[in-house]
């Protein structure tokens, strides 16, 4: 039941927030904060119970299954494993912060705003939980439409264009996935006579190589657009820079992760052979993304756009890690999903805070803020260093593991990907230098963090440091899911992969 509760609490909270906005402008905020907080507490309780106190035997901790549309074999089935548990914790943590960051920023149509915010999170929660492909597509769309409204109504000056672009890119790729889902459904049904969208049944489908390739491309389309991978990334800078702060936070912190999650949960297990064939190409695309994103990030003068391009670069590591096909890299990917969500989310909140103070996102009109706002400067420094991959902070662990795993798969590409870290140093330090250092501050007042902002930023900073020095809880939570992912492969792969697997396990 707890799985349904996650979604129901958010959806009900959203409707309630919209309804009460008629009478009170403050109530929607508290309702949103309450439902997000309740979910956060619930998910942490589930985690403590199942992963820390009594580690579960099976990799699936909780499963749940109801009939929904039996005519098509569609079930309302949710399941939780270590991977989705981690993603949910990230979701509710960032969701909680998204409410706080909107507290003062949003003054227009507050009720409808929080309705959309909660429904986006509900959709994302569904995506991370579902084990029915139809339901997956359903939630995939449920998270889009509220996001469209968030960007389109509360965004910055060019919001309509950005919202359109975001919506059409993701819809187009999503429809290709829908076709692939339908294809898989019929192939499975024709083989077994059991027409179902259930993930566990579809895993056993025997596909001809040609079919497998096409179906995988359908899924891949949706996920690489979401991730995003160059050249399908062009919606991202626009959407990120035009969205309100909470929108950028959710986009960067969570929506991009749904693409990565889809790759791990669906593409690899459903189409193992085709994915292997695609492996080198996938890694190469990832490397292109890393370098291209980094170069463009360096050239931006719009702070939010800059951070957006760093996302392109960081998500390249995810692609490299996923298609390296070993546990080590996969652990890195999971770690990267979490740490990128936190560090980039924090940078977007910072950009939002600066925008609230000086009403511009242009880096050229910033400078010298450290003197006036030392607390803000310190916090920024932490996240900038995290973004460039400084040891001791979470991102280092993630990227290092990814590269270590990728090294076993393809050395040349790994060397190129490592260059991305050098570029990351350049663009990250540029943020620090242009915004907080230098003398261009002038006389205009610039306040340091308020208490509300400190409440957001301090936990983020603590988490990113914790993940950097003690990442073990994340690894142990994700371990069983990842091991299962590769146990399926090892039967079909030549011995070299198994050897890698053994090496891959060595980090424990």
């Amino acid at each position, binding site marked *: 039941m707890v799985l349904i509760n996650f979604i129901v609490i958010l959806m009900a909270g959203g409707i309630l927030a919209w309804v009460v906005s008629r009478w009170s402008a403050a109530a929607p905020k508290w309702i949103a904060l309450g439902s997000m907080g309740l979910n956060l507490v619930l998910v942490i309780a589930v985690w403590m119970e199942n992963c820390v106190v009594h580690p579960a035997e099976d990799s699936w901790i909780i499963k749940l299954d109801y009939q929904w*549309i039996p*005519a098509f074999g569609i079930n309302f089935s949710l399941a939780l494993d270590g991977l989705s548990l981690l993603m949910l914790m990230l979701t509710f943590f960032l969701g909680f912060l998204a409410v706080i960051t909107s507290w003062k920023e949003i003054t227009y*149509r507050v009720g409808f705003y929080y309705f959309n915010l909660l429904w986006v999170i509900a959709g994302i929660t569904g995506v991370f939980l579902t084990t029915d492909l139809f339901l997956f597509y359903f939630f995939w*769309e449920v998270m889009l439409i509220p996001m469209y409204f968030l960007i389109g109504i509360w965004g910055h000056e060019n919001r309509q264009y950005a919202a*359109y672009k975001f919506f059409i890119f993701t819809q187009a790729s999503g*429809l290709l996935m*829908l*076709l692939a889902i339908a294809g898989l459904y*019929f192939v499975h049904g024709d083989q077994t006579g059991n027409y179902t969208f259930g993930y566990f049944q579809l895993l056993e489908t025997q596909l001809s190589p040609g079919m497998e390739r096409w179906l995988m491309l359908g899924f891949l389309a949706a996920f690489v657009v979401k991730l995003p991978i160059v050249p399908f990334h062009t919606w991202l800078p626009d959407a990120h820079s035009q969205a309100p702060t909470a929108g950028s936070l959710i986009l960067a912190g969570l929506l991009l992760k749904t693409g990565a999650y889809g790759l791990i949960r669906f593409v690899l297990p459903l189409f193992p052979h085709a994915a292997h064939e695609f492996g080198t190409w996938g890694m190469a695309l990832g490397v292109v993304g890393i370098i291209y994103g980094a170069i463009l990030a360096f050239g931006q003068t719009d702070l939010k756009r800059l951070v957006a391009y760093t996302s392109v670069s960081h998500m390249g590591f995810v692609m490299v890690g996923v298609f390296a096909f070993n546990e080590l890299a996969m652990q890195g990917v999971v770690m990267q999903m979490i740490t990128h969500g936190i560090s980039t989310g924090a940078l977007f909140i910072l950009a939002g805070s600066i925008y609230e103070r000086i009403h511009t996102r242009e880096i050229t009109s910033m400078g010298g803020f450290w003197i006036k706002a030392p607390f803000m400067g310190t916090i920024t420094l932490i996240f900038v260093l995290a973004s460039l991959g400084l040891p001791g902070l979470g991102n280092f662990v993630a990227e290092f593991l990814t590269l270590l795993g990728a090294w076993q798969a393809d050395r040349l590409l790994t060397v190129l990907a490592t260059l991305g870290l050098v570029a990351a140093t350049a663009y990250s330090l540029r943020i620090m230098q242009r915004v907080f250092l230098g003398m261009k501050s002038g006389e205009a007042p610039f306040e340091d963090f308020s208490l509300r902002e400190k409440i957001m930023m301090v936990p983020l900073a603590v988490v990113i440091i914790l993940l950097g020095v003690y990442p073990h809880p994340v690894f142990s939570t994700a371990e069983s899911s990842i091991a299962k992912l590769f146990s399926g492969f090892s039967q079909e792969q030549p011995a070299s992969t198994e050897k890698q697997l053994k090496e891959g396990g060595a980090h424990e």
Partner: protein
Amino acid sequence: MNNVEIINLLPGILLGCASVLALISITIKRNHKFTYLVTASSLLGVFYFLITYAVNRTITLEPLFIIDGFGLFNTGLIIISTLAVVMISYPYFEQREERKEEYYILLILATLGASMLVISKHFVSLFLGLEILSISLYGMIAYLRKRERSDEAGIKYLILAAFSSAFLLFGMALVYAEAGTMDFEGIAVYMFSLDELPLILVTGFGLIIVGVGFKLGIVPFHLWTPDVYEGAPAPVTAFIATVSKGGVIVLLVRFFMIIQGHQYTVLVTTFTVLAIASMFVGNFLALRQNNVKRILAYSSIAHMGYILVAFLAGGELGAEAVCFYLVAYFATSLGAFGIVAVLSDEERDAERLEDYKGLLWSRPWIASTFTAMLLSLAGIPLTAGFIGKFYIIAAGVSTHRWLLVVMLAVNSVIGLYYYIKIIAVMFERPEEGRPVLHPKLYWVNLATLLLLAVVTLWLGMNPQGMIDLIREFLGST
């Protein structure tokens, strides 16, 4: 014809009687409300008859009609949709000065024509049904004579519909000359005896497709659609978009099923080309429109293309998909045009995009309903349109019509753009001091809209009941 057979035709007879009753009531005393009530209650009566009496039986009334699950289901759909149109019409016409009572007579007759179409199995009943429908529509489209575009639309429809009827007749004549029968079954039997289709028969079918294509408004016979949609009163537009087109689609499906058209490459290829052309042309032309009625007109062209995909997929799943899509499309289109009607005032219809600016803030309920309808037309989950589109994709994939299915997916994306454009306008912050329409709101149409919105969302979230119902009806054929 004995008593048992008469009873099967009762829906049609009741509709005929209702029109006479309405006529007589007008001659005695003109009263808009009374005529409206007569119409609504007779439609309700017919619908009640259908749901209580007419399930699970197949009866042929030689030589003209076949009453089976497929026909009955769609008759019911037509009746209930007309009822929704009536509900929207009352407040709409109440606000306008012209004599409004005769409109209901035409509406009932048009419904009669459409419900004849869906049960006909003979060229004669086909043609009669189609003409009853079309001739009533001539009057309905030009009903508000004081508006200039109303006349234009009426005459345009008159000329083109008469023209297409001529094509249809000529086609039928050619088929008759070759096959020697006008009965669908007879034609099918004749065609099975041939190795190859003779040229005259193919020409005949070609001309029939032209005629039917006009009524459906598929490319390249779509040129009347935007003008007529724009010029006609909003409830009439709703009627054309749903009942009139739906009836013809059902007829086409039946004809194709009986002659087993999927075996004939020439027919399949023709319809494939028509379907793809309709999807692309409809969606592309809608992109640049600034008139809501015209956008919906072009979108209906595209939607006819989508339905043709299900129709071409064929098989049981195809027929189910057509039925489900029709239900979804009817509910959605009625809702969308209903909203245009609700927002219109006596000056003009609410058709300009500016009329919708900031609607979400000024009339949140209506705007939310319209948003739901547009999302359903775009095929976004949680709405009936999504399940309908999914049904079509499933039908297409199951018979490996990949080309059509991919085209459908591509077009859904193009379509999104203009649906979202309307939604985006509704969400814009309203400006002060610009001319706005002042519609009077009646609870009748608001309740109808709410009901349609509930149906759209309910079908989107829990379609199992409707799927079962369709399967039950189709199983009896």
